[in-house]
Every structure is written in C-alpha cells, then in structure tokens.
C-alpha cells in the first residue's frame, strides 16, 4: 500500500519534471528563433494588432470596473479608521502594481492564449505545420516568434492604458458617488505614486504576455488527435497560463519590491 503510494508520487513527480523539461526546451528553441533572423515583420504587426489592439475593449472594461470597485471597497475599509484620504493612493498603487497587470494577463490568457492554442493546434492536426516545414519555413520562426514578441511588447501598453482607465474609474466613483473633491482626489492620486509603481506593473505585464503566448503556442504545437485534441490544448493553454501568471506574480512582486 505504502509502496504504491510512493510509486504514484514518483510517477507524478517524474511526469511533472518531464513536462517542465519539454516546456524549457520549447522556450529555449522559441527564444532562439525570436533573436535569429529572418523576422516576419508582417506577421509580427498582425499579431500585435490581434493581441494588443483588439484586446483593448476587454482590458479597458476590466480595468474600469476594477478601479470603480476598488474605490468603493477601500472607502468602506478606510472610513472605519478615518483614513478616507488614502483611497486615491491605494487605488492607484493597487491598480498599477498589481491589479491591472494580473487581471489583464488573465483576460488576455482567456482571449488570446486560447485563440493561439486553437489556431496552432488546428494547424498541427490538419498538417499545416508539416506543410510549413515542406515549404522550407521554420514553424518556430513563422508561428511562435511573432506571437511571443507581440505578447511581450503589447501587454505593457495594454496595462498602461488599463492603469489610466482604472484610475479614471476610481476617480469617477470617488467624486460622483462618494463625494470626494475632484482636485484633492487627483492630488492624492499622484502625490504618492512613484515611477517604479508603474514600471513594476509594466514589467509584470511583459512577463505575463510572454507566459500567455508561450503557453498558447506550446500547447497548440503539441496537440494531437482531432477536434478533441485541439479542445484539450486550448483548455491546457488557458489553465497553465492562469496558474503560471499567479505563481510568477508572487515571485515578481518579491523581486520588484526589493
């Protein structure tokens, strides 16, 4: 009984380490092809539009309502010890350092990561990736590199826009619903905000963009079977992106606080 239990733990551990190894090799391979020419600039532009521009509504809505809710909740908490003036500062720091990058990362994982896994997965099972190879085109360069670079570059911009919209949402609620003076609220917003608050959020966003696109590409690239395999790849891409974003968020926070 005990032997079986240990064997099961061993098997799970080995298969986990094998998966980590496969992802590490895929990542190294992908990064190499991001750096070494040729570059597919037309595809990079298209991916930047798909990942960045077309995600603006989702990220904007998320940031807006998060900012609004944050202002309300912090007001409730801070009013218990007469610290209402801290609402603006906490909203802006909470958004820029943590909520905008994490929530944007999660939204992008749902919207973009799933789409990447489904598209590349379908290409895999319909032999389109094999066709790329036979046409002397490296699938890592053609499919993976443009998506990774686009994820890495566009997510910080999305989060920056999200920061502005989120803070605006908090401002709206604070001034229209909670009766804050607009000028005081804005003063409090910017008085204690430091550049590194924003930059740390943007660094996180860049890492999350990389994680989301990497997981989408990895699971799509390794999908097998037919429609079921593509569905599984899509689910795995989203779930693994979520988990990796949340785990890496902690370590990035530790790193960036120092």
């Amino acid at each position, binding site marked *: 009984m005990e032997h079986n239990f240990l064997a099961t733990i061993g098997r799970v551990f080995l298969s986990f380490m094998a998966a980590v190894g496969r992802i590490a090799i895929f990542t190294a391979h992908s990064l190499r092809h991001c750096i070494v020419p040729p570059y597919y600039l037309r595809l990079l532009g298209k991916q930047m539009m798909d990942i960045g521009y077309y995600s603006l509504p989702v990220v904007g809505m998320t940031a807006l309502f998060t900012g609004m809710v944050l202002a309300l909740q912090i007001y409730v908490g801070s009013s218990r010890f007469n610290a209402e003036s801290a609402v603006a500062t906490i909203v802006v720091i909470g958004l820029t350092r943590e909520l905008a990058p994490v929530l944007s990362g999660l939204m992008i994982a749902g919207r973009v990561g799933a789409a990447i896994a489904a*598209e590349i997965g*379908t*290409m895999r099972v*319909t*032999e*389109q990736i*094999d*066709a*790329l*190879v*036979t*046409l*002397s*085109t*490296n699938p890592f360069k*053609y499919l993976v590199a443009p998506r990774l670079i686009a994820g890495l570059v566009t997510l910080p911009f999305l989060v920056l826009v999200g920061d502005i919209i989120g803070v605006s949402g908090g401002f709206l609620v604070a001034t229209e619903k909670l009766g804050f003076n607009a000028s005081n609220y804005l003063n409090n917003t910017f008085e204690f905000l430091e550049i590194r608050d924003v930059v740390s959020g943007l660094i996180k966003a860049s890492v999350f963009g990389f994680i989301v696109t990497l997981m989408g590409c990895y699971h799509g690239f390794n999908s097998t079977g037919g429609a079921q395999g593509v569905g599984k790849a899509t689910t795995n891409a989203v779930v693994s992106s979520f988990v990796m974003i949340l785990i890496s968020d902690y370590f990035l926070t530790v790193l960036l606080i120092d």
Partner: protein
Amino acid sequence: MSDVPKIELRNVCKAFGKKVILDNLNLSIMAGESLVVIGGSGTGKSVMLKCILGLLKPESGQILIDGEDITNANTHKREQILRKTGMLFQYAALFDSLTVWENVAFGLIQAHGMNRKDAKDIAIQKLALVGLGPDLAEKHSAELSIGMQKRVGLARAIAADPEIIFFDEPTTGLDPIMGDVIDNLIRDCTQDLGATTLTISHDMESAQKIADRIALLYKGSVVWAGLASEIHTCGDPYVEQFVHGDVDGPIKLDILKP
C-alpha cells in the same frame, strides 16, 4: 543520365514504442521517375514519406537525396533540400488564414525570397495549370470544395518548379471523376517539369495511371517492386491479393474476427 538515384532509402527503420513501422526499408527512385508506393493502411507509407521530408527521424538507416545523406541533416541543410521539393498533402493542408494565391505563392515568397507581386503572377499561372481561374485567387481555402483544395495544393506543390514532388494519397476523398482529373494533372504537371515523383496511395487505378514503377509496402518493407505495366501479370502473391482486394492471402490484417 546519372546512375545515382534521386531518392534512396537504405535499411530505414522507424518504430513508435514497441510498434515497428519501417523495418529495414530499401527503396530507390531514379531522376525523372514516378514511383507509387502502394499498401494497406498502417503499413508505413506515410511514415516513410515523413522520414524523407524530415518530419520524423528514423532510428537507423540512411536517406539520400542526389546521393547526399540527409538523415541527420541540420535545419538549415534540410531547408535547402526542401527548396527543391514540393508536397501535396492528403487533405491539401492549405493555410486557412491565407488566400488561395498566397497559399500557392507561399514557398516562392518565404523560401525563395520572391517579391509578392511576382509571386502572385506565378501563383495565378500555376492555378491556371491546374484548371483554376484567377477569380479564385482571392478566396480562402475554406470556401473551396475538397477537389478544388487538392488542385490548389497541387499548384502549391509545383509553384517553385521542384525537382522532386511527393504526393500523399492524392485521390483520397475525391469522387472518381475528380480523382481522374487530379491523376491527369499530376501526370501532366510532373511530365512538364521533368520532376521525380514519389506518391503513396492505395488507389490502384490512380497508381497505374501516374506510375512508372510501383512498390508494394507490407509491414514496413517493400515486398514487391516492378514496372506499373507488370502489376497484373507479375504473379506475386502479395500483389495479387492487394490488387484483387482478397481477404485471404499472405497479407494479414490486424482485425479481430467476430
């Protein structure tokens, strides 16, 4: 004419786990020759093709193109070799994100560095060769019937005037008339180009139409090879059984009897 075969397989072995797919496979195709490899499902035809194209790596043996061993060729070398080949996939494997002309011109633009305008002109010429008008050039593959998709796939395979063309089950999924159209196109296009062709098929009628020589694959090795004209008179028990579609004979199917 050179005595060096255009394509040669020497003792090629490939297994997936314990299942042996290719078992010391030997095969050679001379320049300008059309060889059709026939055989039942699961006999290793597609695996053989994928090994030649570098999509799978054989466990042992050698694969030579123009006398050069390409079995362990690196990515750069493989891309160079693939520039002189074309491939028609079983279900065409057209890139569904691209238009018809972009599919046909893909290899010209990506592998041969041709500008888009010239590549489009050539693509439209090649589409005309396979009986498709320029009005289809701007459509996407999803808007085409499977017969049309195969013709576009054929146009893509011959777009760069390759020295070698591979055909994977070119008539599968087509009605007899469209199958005949594809066979005629394959024969005409390859004769015009003077290309060496390797086709895998289990369609006997198609095989006789496009082949100079036919090889029968069974359990991962060639059990008979000869001129296409000899297939009905060779007297080989394997060929007899396969041609007549008999259940009884030396070819055993892996099916359980009720």
